């Protein structure tokens, strides 16, 4: 995969912010990555285009799903060395609370990764990390560098 290779060649193999800027839909949703040491937090600042239900108002469930998936993939790429972006096999999203029109934060944890498949879970929260608005877990197909 050119983008991952390019990042590695320029010494930015662990620069998840640079990676996320190269993914159009991540850029469209305004997702960024905040790294402190080896801890990654994804950030999605609120913007009008994220809204699903205008009455409440609430962030679109699909946006939260995308954010959870991106958070999982970013953590996975940080933890493993891949030729190309992992391919989602399946993802299961639990919607816990409606997303308010404010910033979202995400964290993911690679539960297990083998040679070909990884199981990752992720969470998104707004005001309190202990009160996530949604959580997901998914399986991803890897293309590891041999």
């Amino acid at each position, binding site marked *: 995969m050119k983008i991952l290779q390019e990042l590695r060649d320029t010494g930015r193999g662990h620069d998840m912010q640079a990676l996320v800027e190269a993914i159009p839909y*991540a850029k469209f949703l305004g997702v960024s990555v905040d790294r402190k040491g080896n801890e990654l937090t994804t950030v999605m600042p609120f913007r009008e285009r994220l809204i*699903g239900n205008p009455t409440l108002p609430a962030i679109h469930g*699909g946006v939260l799903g*995308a954010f959870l*998936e991106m958070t999982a993939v970013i953590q996975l790429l940080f933890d493993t060395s891949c030729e190309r972006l992992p391919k989602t096999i399946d993802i299961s999203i639990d919607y816990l609370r409606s997303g308010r029109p404010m910033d979202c934060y995400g964290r993911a944890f690679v539960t297990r990764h083998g040679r070909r498949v990884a199981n990752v879970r992720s969470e998104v929260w707004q005001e309190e990390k202990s009160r996530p608005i949604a959580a997901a877990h998914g399986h991803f197909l890897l293309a590891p560098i041999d």
Partner: protein
Amino acid sequence: MSTVSSAVRESSESDLQVNMTNTEEPETGLSASIGMTEMPDDPSTMYVPYSDDIVGDPDTGVVHGGVITALLDSASGHAVRDGKPRGDEISIATLDLRIDYMRPADPGQTIYARADCYKKTKNVAFVRAWAFHDDPDDPIATSVGTFMLGTRNTPRETSS
């Protein structure tokens, strides 16, 4: 199962405009921003036209899975509401959504999603949906989801 390809060819730009103003989401919300639209006579079928903004893999041009999630979630919601617009009496909230990816979407192609609400109890609706290009029998992804019925749909207070 019939394909949507003939219905698709009949849809015109004017249908797109009509549907954009008929959707419940605001013109600045996610649906409008990615051009997610209901089929004129079938609110349980929605589509998103390909655009550079929704790409997930910059090397292949394949659309991001999150767009498929949004399509399946919206189509499922419409199926639960039987196509009626959101109102206090038919307000719902997604409880969970599980999406299985069969194959990558084709770059450059419009993606459709169709949903079927196969069971409704007093509190919960059960929906399955699938995303495809021309052929619903060759899906890009399939999903199952549950929706809570009769949820509050009034503006929340600004203080938490």
